[in-house]
Structure formats: structure tokens, C-alpha cells
């Protein structure tokens, strides 16, 4: 049997249901209180109110924006009074009291207030004062209760410092990512991703349930993913998606992301080759987010604003809804995204190609080729081409190019075996062939051109010296010989050994050329030593050249050898030697000349030595001459020489 309470409860439920329906009708025809739909609604509310009020005032509590609970605990859900509950909740109403039967005006006033923005109601201090001000007394509305205590804050206070620190990491995705990856050194992204997930689960286990059940907890993992290295990030995303169907934490991690965040993760996978549609469908399947994503897609389509912040994958997901309009959106948005990515690739490739140092690359390729080539015949062919290139650069006076080509070959053959290096040397020797040298000599009559030529030939070091010495050996033209000598002299400084070798040549004129060069390279002990060795050369022409070159090469050290050459059987050699001695300013040279006058084997030497002594600048020269002129000198000189010495003493005195 139905109790009175049940009847009262049923009447109250019906009243609240009719009030909710009345609100919907009013919103359909706002302000039109005479509209037949609203008039009918008002009548239904009036009947229901009369029945319900028979048991007294109707009290109800609004809960969470979608439920109305009567005093006896009876709950009216979404489908019964959801609209009324939400309208009240949004305006800060927690309690509803029906104290009288409302008429059309009352209801219109209430519904109008429940349709107004919350801020406008707040001006009156809430819904109840606003309605009271408008004369509504049949319906009363109570405020929402004060905010409850922050359970999260309170529970955190009870946590240990370690656990609290873990919780605080949840607030900072970047920090969380770093913490989850700390010490992870696996080279496998998959292993790293599993480690990260296991660590996160461990954190979840350490935290109390009421914290891990908060939406922001699981979402924090997914948000931290974007701060991880690409390969780990993608593996972890894949892992979360795969686990979402069976693992609550993974499901919530994915499911608590908002659409753009989720799209970012899917897009990340897609850009590494995953099929975005397949991934999106998987996400939709496991996370029950289908409806939200489609809504988002639809809003993109409707807006048609080409919002660049919207991702094509959002649209792609809506393919699951078989929406042809959405497919067009997919195409448009995916195109834009692809083109952006492609543009990045193209620009990077263009920049790389434009930045190639062709010369450096070519030389590197040449080196690698030489290192790998096993066919000696082919390598010989290549080297012949290399020779032609070097010659062309030499002819063009392009010293930089010549240096580059030679260095390329040197580098390429640096690690080669002896046979290969020998091959290079042979080819290198072919570069400076006679026509090229002749051309260089011809051009090098001009001093500037000669400097260029010397710089270019200097790249070949001793080889250039050898080549030029060979050319000098065959050259008869005096001018060209002079150019050659000058060039060799300039190049020989670091390659005296090449010149010295020529001292052993069977051709006396080749030896003479070498002697000339050694004499010109300056005061070098090694050059002097080499020259000393040829003072006894059988060819007088060589000894004459030595006599002329000993002094510049050896300075004072040349006095001894020159003294010896002054007694040479060849008059020309003797003459050259005495003349050279006269060129030495030191007192020691003067004494040597005086000695020659006294002890010289050959009369011509005595005469010439005396003449040289007469001109000699040394301080002792005058005294030596006087001694030679003296009749008491021992051994006493022949009268002719004494008289000549006296004249020279006189002449020096006159000059003084």
C-alpha cells in the first residue's frame, strides 16, 4: 500500500520535474508568458504545486549541477530535473524551497533570473534576493554552502618529505621527466620507456589513493613525456597507448590529456612514420575520447578559420565517424602540416648543399679514392691527369691551386705503401718538364714574375731545385743561366743537399754550377764544407769557381783554403784565390797576403798579393808593407818587389 510519505514524495518529484520542464519551455520562448507552450507549462506546475504543497513546503537540495535531492533522499537525475539543477547550480544555488503555488508571473520572473548570467544575479547578492526584489515569494532559493576544507592540502601535510617531494614533481612536467629518466642509461628507447613507466608506477604506489585518483596525477605523466628525448618519448607514448586498454594508470594518463595535448603525442608518433589514423583510432578505442575529439573536429570544420594551432590528427581521428566533411578537413589540415614539415626538410637540404666546400670535398674524395684503389694502372692514369692539372695551375701562376693539388696528393699517399709513394714521386717528377721550366725561365726575367715562379716552384721543394739544376746544366744562354741561378739560389736554402750532390757529378760544368749556387746561398757552414771538398777538383774551371765562392760561403774560414789555392798550378785559380783574399778585410787576411808575397811559389801570385795588400783596409797592412819593403826583411824580397812595396807604402801615406 502506498504511504502518505510516498505520495508526498511523488508529488514533490513531479513538481520539480515540471519546474524543470517549465524552464526549458521558457528558454524556448523567452519573455512570451502568453505563449501556449508556456501557459500549458504554468498550468502543469500549478497543479503539481497544489498537490505537493498539501504535505507542506517542498525542500530540495541541488547537488553538483545535475541532481536534485529531496528531503527523504529521493534523487532526481539529469533526465528528470537536470536543466533546473544546472541552472541553479551555476548561479550559486544549493537549496530550493517551494512555499506557495507560483503563478505565471512568478515563474516567468524565476526562469528569467535562471537564464541570466551569473554576474547579473550576483549584483543582487544572489538569486534569492534578486527574486525577492522582483516580488517572488512562492519560490525561495538558498546559497551554496562555504568551500570545503582542501583535502589535498591537508593530506599533503601528513605525507613524509620524500613522498611529498614526489608529489611536488607532478606539478612540473619537466622536473618529473628529468626525475623519471635520472640514471637511465639504456641505449634502447624501448627499455628506457619501460623503466620510466615502472618508476611512475612506483611513485603511484608510494602516494595515497586520494592523491593518485586526482586527474592531474595521471595526466602529469603524459605531460612529462614531451620533455623526454624523442626516441624515448615516442616509445613511452606507444607504451601508454598500448597499455591503456588493460592498465588503469596508463588509461588515465592518456585519457586525462586534453585534445591538443593528445594530438601532440599522436602527431609526434606520426612524424616518425606511424600511421596517425591508426594511432588515433587506437586512442579513441581505449580511452573513450571519441566523442570529444569528434566535437573538436566539428568545431574546426564549422569555424573554418584554418586555425593553425589545430592539428590535422584531430581531424583524422574523426574519420572514425565516417564524416566526409571531416575528411576534407583532414586533407586541408594534414596538407598544411606536411607542407610545413617538408619545407623544413627542403630548406635544410638546400642549405647543406649550398654550404658544401666543393674544393675540400673534392680533395677528400681524392684521398679516399687513392686509399681504396687497388688497380695500379688506373691509379697511374689518374696521377697522369693530376700531373696535367698541376702543370696547368703552374702555367696559370695559381700558386694556391698548385699548393692544394700537391697537398692533396701528399695527403692521399701519406698512408700508402712504399710502392705507391714511389709512384707518386715518379709522377711528381714529371710535372716540371723542360718546356714548363723553359717557360718559367723566360717569364722570370721580370723580377715580379720571378718571385711568383719561385713561390710556385717552392711548393715542390728539392724536386724544383733538381729540375732547375738540370736545366742550368743544359742552358747555354747567359741571360737564362743568370735567371736559373737566381731561382735556384732562392730555392736552395732548404735543399742544399740537392746542390751538394752535384759536386760529385762527372760533368765539370755541373760541378761548377753547384759551386756557384753554394757560394751564393750565403754564409752557410755546410755550403763552405762542401766547397772545401772540391778545392782539389781536377778541373781548373771548377777550382777557379771555388776560389771565387769560398769567401762568401765561409768568411774568415776561407783564408786557409784560399791560401792553398793561391799555390794552384792554374794561374786563373791562383789569381781568383788572391783576389778573394784581398776581399777579406781582417788583419789575418792581410798577413796571409804578406806571407804570399814572401813565400809564394809563383811570381804572378807575389805581384798580385802585394797589390792586394797595398789596397787592403786592415790596420796591419801598412806595417806589413813596410816590412816587405825593408831591405832587412827576412827573407829579403827581390828588389823589384821591395821597390813596389815601397811605392805602395808611399802611396798609402799620401792617401793618409
Amino acid at each position, binding site marked *: 500500500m502506498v504511504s502518505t510519505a510516498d505520495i508526498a514524495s511523488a508529488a514533490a518529484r513531479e513538481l520539480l520535474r515540471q519546474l524543470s520542464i517549465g524552464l526549458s519551455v521558457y528558454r524556448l520562448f523567452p519573455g512570451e508568458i502568453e505563449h501556449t507552450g508556456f501557459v500549458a507549462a504554468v498550468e502543469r506546475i500549478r497543479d503539481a504545486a497544489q498537490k505537493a504543497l498539501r504535505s507542506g513546503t517542498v525542500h530540495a537540495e541541488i547537488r553538483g549541477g545535475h541532481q536534485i535531492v529531496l528531503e527523504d533522499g529521493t534523487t532526481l537525475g539529469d533526465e528528470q530535473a537536470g536543466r533546473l539543477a544546472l541552472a541553479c547550480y551555476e548561479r550559486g544555488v544549493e537549496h530550493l524551497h517551494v512555499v506557495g503555488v507560483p503563478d505565471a508571473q512568478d515563474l516567468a520572473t524565476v526562469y528569467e533570473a535562471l537564464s541570466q548570467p551569473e554576474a547579473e544575479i550576483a549584483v543582487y547578492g544572489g538569486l534569492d534576493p534578486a527574486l525577492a526584489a522582483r516580488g517572488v515569494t512562492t519560490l525561495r532559493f538558498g546559497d551554496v554552502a562555504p568551500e570545503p576544507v582542501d583535502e589535498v592540502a591537508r593530506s599533503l601535510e601528513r605525507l613524509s618529505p620524500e613522498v611529498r617531494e614526489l608529489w611536488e614533481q607532478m606539478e612540473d612536467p619537466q622536473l618529473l621527466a628529468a626525475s623519471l629518466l635520472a640514471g637511465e642509461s639504456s641505449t634502447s628507447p624501448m627499455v628506457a620507456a619501460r623503466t620510466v613507466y615502472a618508476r611512475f608506477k612506483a611513485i603511484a604506489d608510494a602516494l595515497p589513493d586520494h592523491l593518485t585518483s586526482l586527474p592531474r596525477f595521471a595526466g602529469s605523466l603524459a605531460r612529462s613525456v614531451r620533455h623526454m628525448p624523442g626516441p624515448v618519448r615516442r616509445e613511452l607514448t606507444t607504451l601508454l597507448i598500448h597499455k591503456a586498454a588493460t592498465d588503469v594508470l596508463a588509461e588515465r594518463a592518456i585519457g586525462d590529456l586534453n585534445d591538443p595535448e593528445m594530438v601532440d603525442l599522436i602527431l609526434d608518433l606520426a612524424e616518425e612514420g606511424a600511421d596517425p589514423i591508426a594511432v588515433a583510432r587506437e586512442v579513441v578505442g581505449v580511452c573513450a575520447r571519441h566523442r570529444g575529439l569528434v566535437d573538436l573536429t566539428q568545431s574546426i570544420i564549422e569555424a573554418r578559420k584554418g586555425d593553425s594551432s589545430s592539428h590535422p590528427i584531430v581531424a583524422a581521428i574523426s574519420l572514425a565517424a565516417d564524416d566526409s566533411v571531416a575528411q576534407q578537413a583532414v586533407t586541408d589540415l594534414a596538407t598544411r602540416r606536411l607542407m610545413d614539415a617538408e619545407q623544413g626538410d*627542403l630548406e635544410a*637540404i638546400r642549405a647543406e648543399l649550398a654550404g658544401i666546400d666543393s674544393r675540400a670535398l*673534392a680533395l*677528400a674524395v681524392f684521398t679516399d679514392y687513392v686509399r681504396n*684503389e687497388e688497380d695500379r694502372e688506373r691509379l697511374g692514369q689518374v696521377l*697522369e691527369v693530376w700531373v696535367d692539372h698541376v702543370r696547368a695551375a703552374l702555367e696559370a701562376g695559381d700558386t694556391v691551386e698548385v699548393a692544394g693539388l700537391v697537398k692533396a696528393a701528399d695527403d692521399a699517399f701519406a698512408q700508402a705503401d712504399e710502392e705507391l709513394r714511389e709512384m707518386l714521386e715518379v709522377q711528381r717528377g714529371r710535372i716540371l718538364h723542360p718546356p714548363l721550366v723553359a717557360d718559367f725561365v723566360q717569364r722570370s726575367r721580370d723580377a715580379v714574375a720571378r718571385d711568383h715562379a719561385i713561390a710556385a716552384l717552392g711548393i715542390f721543394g728539392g724536386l724544383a731545385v733538381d729540375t732547375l739544376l738540370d736545366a742550368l746544366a743544359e742552358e747555354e744562354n747567359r741571360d737564362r743561366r743568370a735567371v736559373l741561378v737566381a731561382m735556384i739560389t732562392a730555392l736552395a736554402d732548404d735543399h742544399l743537399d740537392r746542390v751538394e750532390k752535384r759536386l760529385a757529378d762527372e760533368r765539370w760544368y755541373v760541378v761548377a754550377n753547384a759551386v756557384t749556387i753554394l757560394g751564393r746561398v750565403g754564409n752557410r757552414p755546410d755550403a763552405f764544407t762542401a766547397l772545401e771538398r772540391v778545392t782539389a777538383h781536377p778541373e781548373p774551371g771548377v777550382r777557379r769557381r771555388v776560389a771565387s765562392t769560398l769567401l762568401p760561403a765561409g768568411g774568415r774560414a776561407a783564408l786557409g783554403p784560399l791560401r792553398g789555392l793561391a799555390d794552384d798550378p792554374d794561374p786563373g785559380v791562383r789569381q781568383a784565390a788572391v783576389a778573394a783574399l784581398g776581399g777579406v778585410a781582417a788583419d789575418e787576411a792581410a798577413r796571409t797576403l804578406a806571407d804570399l808575397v814572401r813565400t809564394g811559389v809563383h811570381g804572378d801570385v807575389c805581384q798580385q798579393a802585394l797589390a792586394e795588400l797595398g789596397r787592403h783596409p786592415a790596420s796591419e797592412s801598412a806595417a806589413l808593407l813596410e816590412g816587405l819593403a825593408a831591405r832587412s826583411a827576412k827573407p829579403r824580397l827581390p828588389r823589384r818587389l821591395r821597390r813596389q812595396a815601397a811605392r805602395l807604402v808611399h802611396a798609402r801615406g799620401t792617401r793618409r
Partner: protein
Amino acid sequence: MSAATPGPAALGAVRALLRSLSSARQIASLYPAGHPNRQEAVRRALAAIERLRQASSGDPVLFVVRHGFYLGPTLLARESLSLFRLAEAFEDAGIEAVEFLSGVGDEDVDMLVRALEERRPPNGEGGAITINRVRAARAGAETREERLSDLRRAYATSLEILRETGSRVLDGQLIDLETAMTVVEQLADEVVRDPSQALLLTTIKSYDEYTYHHLINVCMLSIALGHAIGLSREQILLLGLGGLLHDVGKVALPDEILGHVGRLTEEQWRLVQHHPVEGTGLVFATADGLFHPAASIVLEHHAAYDMSGYPSLSGRDLPSAPARLVSVADCFDAVTSRRSYRAAVGRREALAILDAAAGTGFDPRMVRVFVRLLGLLPIGSLVELDTGEIGLVVRHPETPPALPTVLVVLDANRNTVEPEERELAETDASGEYRWRVVRSLDPGELDIDVLELLFTGSLREPAPPEPEPEPGGLIHEPSHGEPVPEGYVDTHNQHTNGHR
């Protein structure tokens, strides 16, 4: 005179005839009249003529128009491409039509061969071979064939020049870089003018002249890639030249390796893997080749993005950018070719192979750009539509990833149909796509001659089986990302396939 469309037997016979005429022309240039070799060549051509007459319903007529050979109204696509010099000789001699009447004798054939060899009109009457008595009907010539004419000519010229290059190399001579560059310039002009058609042309493969076709294809793909990237002409030509020469080192490989079927020995693999160095030597040894930037492509196209390939490169972290670009094109063309150890893969699958090796064998950026160039349904792919029809992907739209254009050539029952283009992006009244691609197909699976299709725009009954040369034992060594053949030895890294 036979105006009817020739049957498969006649087509097979005329192909044999053209090859024998080409051979006879070359022999005539080497030996004097009356030489036994010349007589033998003439006899072979005569035998081919007799076969052609037997297979034809009337007196067969061979036309030579715009460098193309036609038997009656039918274009002989492959011969037009591969026997370019013979076509030139016909045209230089002023021969546009050759009618083979009954009773053709040695003298008639010799007259024709001499005219071709001397490149001037034949002396006197040809007896049973009449010259230019009939004319080709030019009206209504295939527009597709015309459209492809310049491109085909460039391709054919390239083929001839590569053959000559190959002969020179085998004779111990050097390659001619200047001529090679001229080829590349011609190809570049054509590719840039119509990249889609050029990409279609790269579907041409040849079993017996694999290397030459491969070189041209890689050259064209590289040029197209450079063009798509937006490189300068100079950079594009460099890529093209590198593509054209990248495998020139293989030309000198011994016949016993090139013709080898089955497992190669370790030493044979070593020689194969030496080809980048051999090719670089050939480039370097030419007057203009030393330090030529294209040499980096020749040397490094197998070096691999992660430097795991061969030869080893010193002092560098990566192969050069041009080499990385060309290596992508190289792999794509290689894997879409038939090899002794496996069938050709489809063009779409080839892109998947590239994608799988991105980051190891290939530069991922360059793979992405290449995939973008060819599209997910690459030009030249054969596809089956949801209607059951078979078509060839012939064009991509300017804006990706919109759908391509497919030339339908077979109906759902695999019968040839009048080719018709289908824009896959086209939708019906309800906004649904009218056609969808169900799957990609292998041309071999359907016995479709893509070359024929490209040049004529249609298919005809396949010719009777000819004595087709055996596929070369070594067509191409395995590319990154694809399975290695049995017995493969990476002699460069001293690894066998069991240890890779």
C-alpha cells in the same frame, strides 16, 4: 601492304628483324663487301624478314617516324628506345617506309643494310624491298606518343651514349665527361619540363641492359629530386651527372660476374663492392674528371648515412649531401628492378624499404623528400581500384596529399580497355570519393608492358614468348633495408650475411 594491327607473332618477328638489321649495319661498318661476316649478318636479317612475312596477313610495312619504329600502325616502343641509332640511320638515309614483298633476297637486304650503314638513300631499286612506296598516315598520331617524343629521344640518346661509354671502358678507354654532361643537360631539360612524365619513364627496366637503364633512371630520378627540392640548375646537373655515372664502375665488371646466376663467391662480391672506387677512377682519369664534384657521388653512393657501407670514408661524419641524395634514387630504382635472387618489388613497397632504412642507410630528410616527390602511390605504380579495374598512376596533383590521376587500362575482368584517366580526388554528389585504390600491383603479375603503355597509351595482347635473355646474375647488390641474397658477403666490412 598490311594496314591491319599486327598480331603478337608479327610483333615478335619484327623485333627480331630490327635487332638483326642493327647488327648487320654495325658489321657492315667493320667489314668490306663480300666478307663472310657481312654475308652471315645479311642472311640472319633475311631469315627475320621471312619470319615476319609468315606472321603477317599481307606484305608487312615498317615505318620510321619521329625516331619511332612502327609495324603498320603499331608503335614498337622498346625498339624505338633501344635501337635509337638504327632509327637515326633510317632517317638519315631518308627511309620512312620499308615494304617487304614476297621473294626478298640477299641482294635486297644488302642494299638496305648498305643504305643504313652509309646513311644515304639506297642505290637503285630494292627489288622485293621497296622504299618509301607507301607513307605513314600521320593524321591522328597518338598525342601521348608525341608528348613523350622529346623525353623518349633524350632517353634513347642517353642509352646509346652509355652503350658507347661502356664499349670505351671495356676497350680500356676513358669515359667522355663532356658528352655525359650533354646527356644530363638534355635529360634535365625534359625532366624539369614535365617531371610526371619523366618519373613515368623511369619505370623502364631492362634485364639485358640493366646497368644502362639503371644509370639513366637514377639520373632522371636525381634530377627530379633536385628539381623538387628547388636546387639551382648547376646543382641539379651535378646530381644528374652523379646519377648517370654512379655505377659506371660496374661496366668493367667481368662478364662471368655480370652474367652469373646464383651464389657469388667472396672474391666476386669483393669485385662488385669495388665498383664505386672503380667508377671514381674512371671519372678521375678523364681530363676534366679529376676533382670533379660528381666524383663524390660515384665514390660514396654505397657509403650509407651511418657510414656502415663501402668504401670507408676518412675524416667525414657523413657521405656528401649529393651522394646521399643520389643513393636514395639508386636504391629506389634498384629494388624496383628484377634481380637474379628476387623479383622486382612494387614502387610503393620500394618506398617502404627506403623508409625502413632511413636513419641508417639513408638520410631521413632525403627519404622524406623523395617519398613526397613520388607520392604514396608513386607515379608509374600499377594499382587496383575498388571497381576491380587496373590502372597506372600517371600524375600527381600540385598540392599534396591530394589523390593522383590513374590511367585505367584493364577492366575488372583483366581485359584491355580503351585507356581512360580517373581523377581519384573526384567525388560524387554525396561527397564520397568515386574511386579508391585497393592495392598496388606488380606489372609482372599482370603481364603488363609498362613501356608499351607509356608510349602508346594502350595495351595490346602480349607478344609470343621470345628467347628472352637470362637476367644478369648480378643486377645490383642489395640496397640498404632489403634482404640480402643467399651467399652475400660484405667483403668491405668482412661480414657475411649471417653476421650482419
